[in-house]
């Protein structure tokens, strides 16, 4: 219901300019407290891998420099170019401080105060601790500067109106729910933290509404309209089990790309493994598998199964 209202509001504001002005002045985000922790480069690099920073902000296929800007993401809203986040002060994030970095990663807000498009998966990083941020920051300092900006996003009206993102945030920005659940094992909770947080499985494996918001009761139910025409299958526990996934073969697939049927991931999942999950420890991969095969179901169970055709890896 709230979403319908918001959608209506969006329509009206396109006509009523004064509302737009009000929105433009609407402050977003919370200024983070000073972060004075010492970061650990190895931990930060590990988290950067897990979180897909490197996968998304590096254009591997075209031989781009690490973190100098990723391959374009073609969506219904336009084409997004993951920016240069190397240490170059002008074209990258070399001129930022750690608090600005924290605000960008956890809250999706740029140093100049504008909101990032949710093509950047910051909603999943909201629960990163100050130590996580300090670690990431330390690791990012080791990246060679690249003095070239990524192209600007090519987004048409009305999505080029950045104030609209404030409405988007109000409607869809939810807590990632990565905190431990009492009564569950440490392994399961670690898996939950990774799956719902850093590794942001839900970014692709959850259906999105017309505004690009993830549909809350379709978590992990799959998405047949990924950027670039890709599809993501359901990763709900019963579907995974039905398709022959076990803790052992799922964690091995995240490490190697090899599925139980003897196929090897390609597409977006191939990239996820090649540039991300295969760098994770076996313990973490196992935790992810334990959680995925036993994840909480969305609250309104009846709505969970979207009419998504399931790609078959066998």
């Amino acid at each position, binding site marked *: 219901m709230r979403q319908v209202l918001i959608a209506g509001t969006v329509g009206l504001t396109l006509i009523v300019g004064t509302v737009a002005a009000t929105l433009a002045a609407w402050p977003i985000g919370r200024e983070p407290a000073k972060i004075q922790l010492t970061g650990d480069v190895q931990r930060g690099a590990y988290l950067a891998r897990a979180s897909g920073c490197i996968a998304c902000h590096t254009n591997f296929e075209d031989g781009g420099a690490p973190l100098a800007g990723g391959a374009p993401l073609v969506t219904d809203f336009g084409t997004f170019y993951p920016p240069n986040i190397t240490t170059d002060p002008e074209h990258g994030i070399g001129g930022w401080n750690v608090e600005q970095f924290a605000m960008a990663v956890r809250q999706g807000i740029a140093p100049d105060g504008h909101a990032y498009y949710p093509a950047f998966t910051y909603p999943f990083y909201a629960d990163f601790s100050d130590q996580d941020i300090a670690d990431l920051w330390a690791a990012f300092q*080791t990246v060679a500067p690249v003095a070239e900006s990524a192209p600007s996003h090519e987004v048409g009206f009305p999505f080029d109106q950045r104030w609209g993102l404030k409405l988007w945030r109000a409607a869809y920005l939810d807590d990632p729910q990565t905190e431990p659940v009492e009564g569950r094992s440490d392994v399961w909770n670690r898996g939950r933290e990774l799956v719902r947080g850093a590794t942001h499985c839900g970014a692709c494996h959850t259906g999105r509404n017309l505004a690009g918001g993830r549909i809350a009761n379709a978590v992990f139910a799959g998405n047949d309209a990924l950027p670039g025409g890709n599809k993501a299958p359901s990763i709900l526990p019963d579907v995974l089990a039905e398709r022959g996934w076990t803790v052992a073969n799922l964690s091995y697939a995240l490490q*190697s790309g090899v599925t139980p049927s*003897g196929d090897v*991931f390609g597409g977006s999942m191939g990239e996820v493994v090649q540039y991300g999950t295969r760098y994770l*420890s076996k313990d973490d991969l196992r935790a992810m598998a334990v959680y995925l095969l036993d994840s909480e179901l969305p609250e309104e169970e009846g709505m969970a199964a979207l009419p998504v055709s399931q790609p078959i890896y066998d």
Partner: protein
Amino acid sequence: MNTKRNTKRIFAGVAAIGLASAALAHTGATGIVKERMVAMSAMGDAVKEISPMMSGEADYDAAAVREAAEVIGMHAGETMTRLFPEDNENEASYVKDAIWEDWETFAELAERLHSYSEGLALAAENGLGSSQDGMADAGAMMGGGDMMGSGSMMGGGMMADATMGREELAEMPADAVFAMVSDTCSSCHTRFRTEAK
């Protein structure tokens, strides 16, 4: 230019999906497309046979690993690339046009698969390595300290140097060589295979 290429790729991909689902994969394919599906399936079966050994789920069997490696090798290299002529039969398949636009990369990956699978056959006797965290330990993650410095880690997801000789591979633990084999599969699928079925 990237966008243009991507858009083109999407159109090609969507067209391919439509046709492929109409043709219903294995049953609908004919001729050379069917031939390569059979070859890919044979490699898939070989991988399926030994991957549980590599992950520790099944008991290691050196002879089975050697045999599987030979099957993969048999279908790799030129045997594979000659199955991908650029003609309209491809409409009923999962191949992306990118394969002909970047034939050199495809041929190189196919050749790499050939030498890695030969290496795996030689390394089969070595059994599994002791490392519990293949990529994650050994500081391999980011080339020993600096996050994204070392070129080899960032270069197209390849785990090891493509020029690695058979002798070197023969000395490695079988699971490490198998990882190189499966990485090669994945790199190629990521670039050149339409995923949606």
